[in-house]
């Protein structure tokens, strides 16, 4: 987007504007360095994914994606996201309601606890469930006696995914709802709305873009999580292999086209996420302002 103000004022105030911005050559050099850095570190990895996926032509690409193991990996990834994202949405809304609408003791501490999963290594996020539910784990014997399988099965993968994506929705909604205050809800309540009605007809429409933003990021992470899921999955082909884990297996088997074909789907998901995220920021930037930049 061109900035007309700067353009019109530069020629008149040559000396002054030179003092509050860098000289032209310096500007050009800084811009070149920044863009070159981004091209090498961000753009090239993205391009190489699609390049390698299509290295042996579109036929090989489609074939790599149609294998039964790949299909089941895609299905599992969708299933895991379909369970963990809604649960974290319910939690995020509930936590944001409690934290943003009320003043209570220990609120700051609770907010810190919600962010905790972000400062824990994904591998440790998986490990904690192994220690809890594994054969040597705290609940291992009890689970075995009751025939409940959590580890190296879908429930374990879902739990690990919920753990790593836990803060996304809550931390988008909390600052947004705090900024919006309680006025709208109080008005609705004084006009006779029930609590549910106030939430459903007043709060939810107010925060819908922020909520969508959080869901977007939560979903991207849920579908792409590797470390935590890798620890709890057991890597059973066709059963407990999510897409990222399938990428690893194919890659380690030197099946580059296969690995990058699956990777290209995940990269496509990342691109769609980025596009939607940017559109949301462009159209509802003011509403999201409180939460921009994680």
């Amino acid at each position, binding site marked *: *987007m061109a900035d007309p103000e*700067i353009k019109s004022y530069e020629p008149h105030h040559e000396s002054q504007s030179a*003092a*509050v911005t860098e*000289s032209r050559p310096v500007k050009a050099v800084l811009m070149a360095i*920044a863009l070159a850095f*981004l091209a090498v570190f961000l753009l090239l*990895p*993205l391009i*190489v*994914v699609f390049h*390698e996926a299509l290295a042996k032509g579109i036929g090989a690409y489609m074939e790599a994606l149609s294998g039964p193991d790949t299909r089941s990996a895609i299905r599992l990834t969708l299933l895991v996201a379909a369970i963990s994202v809604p649960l974290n949405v319910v*939690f995020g809304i*509930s936590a944001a*309601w*409690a934290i943003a*609408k*009320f003043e*209570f003791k220990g609120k700051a501490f609770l907010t810190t*606890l*919600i962010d905790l999963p972000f*400062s*824990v*290594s*994904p*591998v*440790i996020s998986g*490990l*904690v*469930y192994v*220690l*809890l539910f594994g054969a040597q*784990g705290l609940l291992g014997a009890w689970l075995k006696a009751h025939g409940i399988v959590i580890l190296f099965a879908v429930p374990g993968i879902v*739990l690990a995914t*919920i*753990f790593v994506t836990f803060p996304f929705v809550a931390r988008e909604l909390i600052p947004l709802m705090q900024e919006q205050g*309680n006025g709208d809800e109080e008005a609705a*309540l*004084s006009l006779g709305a029930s*609590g549910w009605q106030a939430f459903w007809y007043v709060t939810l429409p107010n925060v819908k873009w922020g909520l969508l933003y959080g869901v977007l990021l939560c979903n*991207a992470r849920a579908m792409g999580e*590797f*470390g935590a899921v*890798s*620890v709890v999955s057991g890597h059973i082909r066709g059963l407990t292999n999510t897409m*990222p884990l399938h990428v*690893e297996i194919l890659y380690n088997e030197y099946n*580059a086209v296969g690995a*990058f074909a699956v*990777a290209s789907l*995940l990269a496509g*998901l*990342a691109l769609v*996420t*980025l596009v939607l*995220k*940017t559109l949301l920021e462009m159209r509802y930037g003011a509403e999201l302002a409180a939460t*921009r*930049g*994680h």
Partner: protein
Amino acid sequence: MTTAPAKAGWRFRQPSVIPGFGLTLGFSLAYLTLIILIPLSGLVWRSAALGWTDFWAIAVDRRTLNALKISFGTAFLAAVVNVVFGTLVAWVLVRYRFPGRRIVDAMVDLPFALPTAVAGIALTTLYAPNGWIGHLLMPLGIKVAYTPLGIVIALVFIGLPFVVRTVQPIMEELDKEVEEAAATLGASRFQIITRVLFPGLAPAIVTGFSLAFARGVGEYGSVIFIAGNLPFKSEIAPLLIVIRLEEYNYEAATAIAAIMLALSFLMLLVVNLVQTWSRKRYG
């Protein structure tokens, strides 16, 4: 803030006409406890059950120490690189106008959105000796893939948006009039940047650094492909945890995880102190 009625004394929450406090807080706490707190305290409990001698033996094991050194060292280097280039990228995005700026701005978030395993195999392919970048570096005698340098590259990729997205909003809020005032008073552009602009940005830069560092220390997916994973040379701590788990050596895995967590929290504490200090110093 709002003052509580004098007769009420200590109260858990301020009165409010909004309903649903018990329900939402209750559900949130239950969910938080089940998903995060109980599993994490299980880790603490298990490492406490190890006993001090066993714990210490694992902690000072040469392989553990090396893995921790590699994880923290490479994460530190990557965070330093990200502070330099991330701040530059933020500056270019905030202050300069060029075609495609919006797209470049959106691209910065790619590492947040791209699954780490995909980043890992893509970077490995790029920096392998026959890769697009690797074959250019080969004649210079620089090996990236399967060396600690590769780990740094992966962590630079992972950490970049943390620095840019922390510094960028603060840069946008910088008051241009302050710069103009400094210029009117005869400050050179360099002086303005180092004496006027930098102090305002310092806390954000420290935050960005710590976020990138913390993420780098724990990173697994993007690193294991490019690292080569040689014990003592390019084996990161999270990978060592996975290896110990696969050996059914739960004790060692638990101990290493506990050490990593403790070090990360210590680091966050130090960063918070530095931040308070820099706010006081420059604020």
